[in-house]
């Protein structure tokens, strides 16, 4: 496939590459932390977009995969002393496997019923990890500081994690574009528009939906391992932050659901906005309210998000922005 000729493919990749290279060149830790946080949001939003934007299924449980992958990977690192490059894919695979099993069960539900079931899954997962002793229960687990020696010390390990996250985000955006432009992606979008009609036209909806769910779950699983490797300790409250699931939905909607570039702009923009609000005295206490008003305005007046709005306002951009 000749994806390199399409600006819709390389534009998001170039943006991430530039953002990732910036702190590597300047060597400033503060910039790295800001971009690290932004990239986590971008990657969470882009992976959710595969399910939410392309397939049209609202999941309030995206963070379950983040938390579960993180716990599995962290358990491998702290209890079994396995290196990061094994733990991270294992976290991703276990999240993908959970999505496969869950998908077989709850993807039979449509629309609002599916959304409700994902709320239940999110709550059940949190309550389960809180009570499950090998994972440390409510106290969680921590990494021995000497674990970082294999990565050239803690300071070097932070840079390694950052580079890994940049690479992962690049892969994810490429996958997101390839899924969207492939036949598989077309069948997902057909399901979004009208599931019954899609099935009549020969789309085998159950397996297409399940694979979309699996792909969207693998990435948060890996991100979870990276995030908590960098953190050094893990607790149920940090790993299963329900409101992060919702914030991820806000990011996707802000940037434009069902587009490749949208979650990138939405994730980075939302983090930027949140950072600004947190340090503004007037909005410090009510930043949640401001985010809510923002979300409401988007849903009521610009349902396509930033990218959707640009595409419909300036038809020229349709060839550039996917």
């Amino acid at each position, binding site marked *: 496939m000749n994806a390199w000729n399409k600006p819709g493919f390389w534009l998001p990749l170039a943006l991430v590459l530039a953002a990732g290279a910036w702190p590597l060149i300047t060597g400033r830790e503060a910039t790295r932390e800001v971009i690290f946080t932004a990239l986590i949001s971008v990657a969470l939003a882009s992976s959710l977009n595969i399910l*939410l934007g392309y397939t*049209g299924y*609202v999941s309030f449980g995206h963070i379950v995969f983040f938390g579960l992958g993180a716990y599995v990977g962290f358990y491998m690192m702290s209890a079994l002393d396995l290196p990061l490059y094994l733990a991270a894919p294992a976290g991703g695979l276990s999240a993908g496997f959970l999505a496969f099993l869950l998908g077989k*069960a*709850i993807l*039979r*539900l449509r*629309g*609002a*019923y599916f*959304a*409700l*079931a994902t*709320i*239940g*899954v999110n*709550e*059940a997962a949190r*309550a*389960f990890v*809180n*009570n499950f002793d090998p994972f440390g229960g409510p106290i969680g687990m921590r990494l021995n500081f000497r674990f970082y020696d294999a990565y050239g010390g803690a300071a070097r390990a932070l840079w390694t994690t950052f580079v890994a996250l940049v690479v992962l985000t690049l892969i994810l955006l490429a996958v997101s574009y390839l899924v969207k432009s492939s036949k598989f992606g077309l069948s997902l979008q057909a399901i979004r528009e009208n599931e019954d009609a899609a099935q009549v036209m020969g789309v085998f909806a159950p397996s297409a939906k399940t694979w979309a769910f699996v792909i969207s779950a693998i990435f948060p699983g890996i991100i979870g391992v990276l995030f908590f490797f960098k953190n050094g300790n893990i607790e149920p409250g940090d790993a299963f932050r329900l409101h992060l699931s*919702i914030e991820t*939905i*806000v990011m996707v*909607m802000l940037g434009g*659901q069902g587009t490749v570039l949208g979650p990138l702009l939405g994730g980075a923009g939302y983090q930027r906005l949140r950072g600004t609000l947190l340090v503004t005295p007037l909005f410090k*206490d*009510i*930043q*949640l*309210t*401001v*985010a*809510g*008003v923002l*979300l*409401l305005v988007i*849903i*009521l007046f610009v*349902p396509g998000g930033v990218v959707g709005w640009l595409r419909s306002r300036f038809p020229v951009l349709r060839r550039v922005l996917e």
Partner: protein
Amino acid sequence: MAEVLLPSLIDGLLLGFVYGIAAMGLSLIWGVMNVINLAHGPIIALGMFGVYLSFSYLGLNPYLALILVAIGGLLAGVVIYAVAVHRVLNAPHLSTLLATFSVNMIIIGLGTAAFSVSPYNVDYSLGSASLGSIRVPVSRLAAALAAIIVTALLYLFLYRSRPGKYIRAVANNRGAAELMGIPSARVLALSFGLGTMLAALAGGLIATFFPITILSGGGYELRSFVIVVLGGLGNPLGALIGGLILGTLEGVIPVFTITTWVPVFEFVLFVLILLVRPSGLLGRRT
């Protein structure tokens, strides 16, 4: 065993009535306009704080304050409908879910700024009554009684009054109802208001016997989802019965195992029912 089981059974059952009317609000809104109101929890919390504020600052009896809370809940619902829901009513589910969720964020954000997340308590006690060998707080009995009265009034309203019949007609077939000259936008706003009114009332009743925080509505919102699915989405009486079932389970399960496992059971049950009978245990077969 029996002397532990029976009191916790009755405790749970009485609490179940209150869960029931919270869930009824959610169920009514779903039944009339196919919207899942994700602002349900914050409305419950607002009901709690309505009772708390009118008791602490106006010196009102908490049960009289419920009348104020009901009126406030009705108005709040109409406003929420007009601002957030009406425009996206015919858009895909995602839009209404997110629109009501943004209302949730707005209320919680303002509420946390005003009350912080620390607990408050309505300092009002009715003592406790003895039923044979079992002692039950009177406030629980009063709450159950209030829940039954509210349910009866709701049914009288829906089946005997003209606006109630409009609501059922719009729920049944909005297009046909409009052709018969029913002002559907106003009827939908009224139904949304009734739904939030029930949520606010449930919150007010909870405030009479539990300490409250601005975030405690969330737990009741999740329970309402479980109950509504138990009783069948869009079936108010089913919601009351579902509430009784859940209340009983919550009373009984901790006798046999550790309390922290209760949510695991609840949500596993919830997902299982969604899978096996999405129309609910008491709902119509689809």
